[in-house]
């Protein structure tokens, strides 16, 4: 029987011989991850379940990233609870100064390999589809069950095939690919389904860009955003992968619930306007919008690729006098590499500030939240009302070129106008 990549992965993680779309099955996890927000809530649920130990400490990873470094005493309490629990259970813990933003970090640290199932207490766990893994976001009680039993329940999802063709023009990045998809299918268009990206346009995306694409699959309601493993995946995993792996793909005659064709050569840089990621227009339709703060970072676009694009725009320029710019490398390793490449110097010279890796202001937590009446242009993944602080603020989502260009111009402009 012809199977999708998702069906193949799930089948290998159940006791079943075959799967039917929509049926609920128990799926075994290869990695279970939580953070300082989802973890402590999960620990309470795990205690109520009567589970004293995790199912397998070698498969559990805790990451301090949301309120790290602690914004207040309550956050410090959560971070302490995360570390104490991790020490007690003997699981891997990435704390302050030793990790970064969970999804970028887990990929970088080789936890994610093609064909695995990764259950994460964070909706953007779909990021790991970039490596051909079924990475999916769950709530804290689900995570507690994963910690206790190493399993979660899952309705077998169908897959929407997204076929990418054509060559991208300069300033069109992975961010624009996923914004185009969400703009077309809508914020609920992928609900209870997987997005699988394929075609020459997918092959041409670097791993950093695939992470950006997969990261926002949940913004279309999807369970994960998959890329079948290929040479790009293999190269990325060299010296990184924590386990052997093999490349698998959807069968050519597998059943897909939908097919979406996107011609990348027809794409221009895009921007998602307040207050929905699905509110997507070409940058040219949003030019002239005053921007009070530019924020470059987060689990979708805080990679070396994004920082290099930012540096390309900021080199020899100054951040506009009426605009603040915050740049957040996603991990300690990216931070160091950006420092070694001289990128941080370009940012600071231009008048931007460089933050330690953290989820920070992306979710309105701390470290650069927005005030009433202000506009942010950010490389993050959500622009819901109040997402970055005040409910009276507007958040625009775009790629790093567009964000850095806006930092220089003080308003939304097309990147070529600055460069």
């Amino acid at each position: 029987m012809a199977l999708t990549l998702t069906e193949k992965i799930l089948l290998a993680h159940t006791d079943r011989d075959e799967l039917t779309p929509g049926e609920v099955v128990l799926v075994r996890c290869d990695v279970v991850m939580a953070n300082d927000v989802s973890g402590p809530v999960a620990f309470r649920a795990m205690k109520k379940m009567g589970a004293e130990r995790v199912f397998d400490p070698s498969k559990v990873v805790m990451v301090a990233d949301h309120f790290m470094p602690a914004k207040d005493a309550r956050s410090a309490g959560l971070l302490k609870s995360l570390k104490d629990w991790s020490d007690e259970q003997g699981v891997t813990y990435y704390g302050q100064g030793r990790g970064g933003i969970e999804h970028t970090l887990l990929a970088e640290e080789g936890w994610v390999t093609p064909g695995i199932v990764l259950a994460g207490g964070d909706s953007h766990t779909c990021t790991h589809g970039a490596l051909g893994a079924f990475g999916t976001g769950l709530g804290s009680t689900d995570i507690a069950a994963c910690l206790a039993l190493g399993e979660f329940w899952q309705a077998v999802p169908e897959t929407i095939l997204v076929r990418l063709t054509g060559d991208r023009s300069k300033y069109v990045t992975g961010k624009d690919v996923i914004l185009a998809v969400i703009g077309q299918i809508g914020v609920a268009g992928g609900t209870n389904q997987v997005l699988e990206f394929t075609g020459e346009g997918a092959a041409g995306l670097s791993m950093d860009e695939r992470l950006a694409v997969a990261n926002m699959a949940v913004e279309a309601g999807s369970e994960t955003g998959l890329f079948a493993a290929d040479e790009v995946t293999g190269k990325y995993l060299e010296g990184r992968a924590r386990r052997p792996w093999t490349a698998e793909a959807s069968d050519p005659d597998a059943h897909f619930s939908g097919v979406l064709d996107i011609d990348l050569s027809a794409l221009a840089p895009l921007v998602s306007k307040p207050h929905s990621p699905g509110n997507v227009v070409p940058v040219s339709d949003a030019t002239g919008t005053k921007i009070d703060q530019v924020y470059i970072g987060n689990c979708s676009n805080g990679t070396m690729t994004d920082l290099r694009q930012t540096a390309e725009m900021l080199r020899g320029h100054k951040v506009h006098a009426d605009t603040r710019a915050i740049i957040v490398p996603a991990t300690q390793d990216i931070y160091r590499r950006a420092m070694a490449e001289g990128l941080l110097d370009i940012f600071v010279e231009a008048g931007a500030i460089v933050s330690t890796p953290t989820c920070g202001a992306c979710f309105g937590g701390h470290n650069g939240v927005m005030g009433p009446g202000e506009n942010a242009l950010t490389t993050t993944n959500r622009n819901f009302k109040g997402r970055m602080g005040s409910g009276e603020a507007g958040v625009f989502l775009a790629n790093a070129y567009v964000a850095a260009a806006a930092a220089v111009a003080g308003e939304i402009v097309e990147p070529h106008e600055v460069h």
Partner: protein
Amino acid sequence: MIIDGTAVVIEGDNIDTDVLYPGSFLNIDDPDAMKPYLFEGLDPGIRDRLEPSCVLVVRDNFGSGSSREHVPLAMKAWGVGCVLGHSFARIFHRNCINLGLPVVTSPRAAAAAVAGERIHIDTDEGAIEVSDERYEIAPLPEFMAEMIDSGGLVEWVRGRLKA
């Protein structure tokens, strides 16, 4: 399970969990302490309309975005009896089921519900009564029904660990 409660209608499609429980209050892990922040980014006045076993009536793709369980945890802490909607985002939907908070998808019943009216839901019979009209609910997959009957995922796992 039988739920008999007053309808509290929340208008708008694609209501996300950020407005339902803003990020700045995620540094709380005790469900009772989450109560004052439920609906804070949408309309704090909704909290005043909540009463024990009330039925939240919601529209399409309710609970989209973040996986934060703080939303259904705070709803439970307020005593919400059921969430009845046109459709739900995946993670919010499963969080409700896991917590044993009944979540019912029925576009017709949700559309018919009027704020302040009584709604009667019988999940065993698979029926909802709204304004003297009866609507059928599609049965849940067996596993989910079994888990809800056992009181939610915590109880289900507890049972598995004892077995």
